[in-house]
């Protein structure tokens, strides 16, 4: 049972990730995709550029997944975050969880995305349709 956590410049194949998590003892499988939207705070968005402190991000994602696995009875999990330039409709992040029972899959999936947004050293820069660009900083992470 090895969980998969990585940062990549390649497009994310959520279905393949999910399939890779499901084993014969699992009764539930849940795939979350974060997708680039065409607007934010009322401004039209044309693309997003994601940057990451990749080696640390993979380590933090691994810690988050380990926390989820110790907290809920789940099977295999996979978390992938994409970096580079993404267009509207493209997945920026995928979280796949398989588990014997559904409740744990929902809990673990939700935990991973919430913690990822708080702690993973990853940043998005919005490219607006009018040509302006801006780094977003939503959560201040830190020693815990």
């Amino acid at each position: 049972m090895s969980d998969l956590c990585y940062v990549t410049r390649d497009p994310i194949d959520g279905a393949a990730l999910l399939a890779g998590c499901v084993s014969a003892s699992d009764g539930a499988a849940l795939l979350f995709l974060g997708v680039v939207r065409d607007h934010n705070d009322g401004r039209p968005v044309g693309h997003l550029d994601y940057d990451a402190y990749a080696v640390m991000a993979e380590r933090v994602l691994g810690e988050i997944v380990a926390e989820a696995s110790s907290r809920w009875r789940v099977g295999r999990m996979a978390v992938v975050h994409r970096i580079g330039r993404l267009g509207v409709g493209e997945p920026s992040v995928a979280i796949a969880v398989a588990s014997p029972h559904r409740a744990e899959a929902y809990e673990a999936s939700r935990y991973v995305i919430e913690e990822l947004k708080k702690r993973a050293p990853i940043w998005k820069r919005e490219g607006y349709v009018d040509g302006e660009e801006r780094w977003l900083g939503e959560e201040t992470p830190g020693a815990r």
Partner: protein
Amino acid sequence: FASYREIAGADELRVELPAGAVAADLVARLRERGESWARLPPSPALAVNLEYAALATPLREGDEVAFIPPVSGG
């Protein structure tokens, strides 16, 4: 990373610090350089060797310190 890259104008740099220095000393030393470094917050979130760390963390020869702007992944 992100907005801090524009402050440093580089991804990485080496800084010499006296023995017994902590992460906060590094922040102070860099901010003294003035110009764009003044935009580095006095108490930035930071990581030492890939782990989030407090400003009071002692630094040793070869440690990798990263200043982490507010994150926005997902």
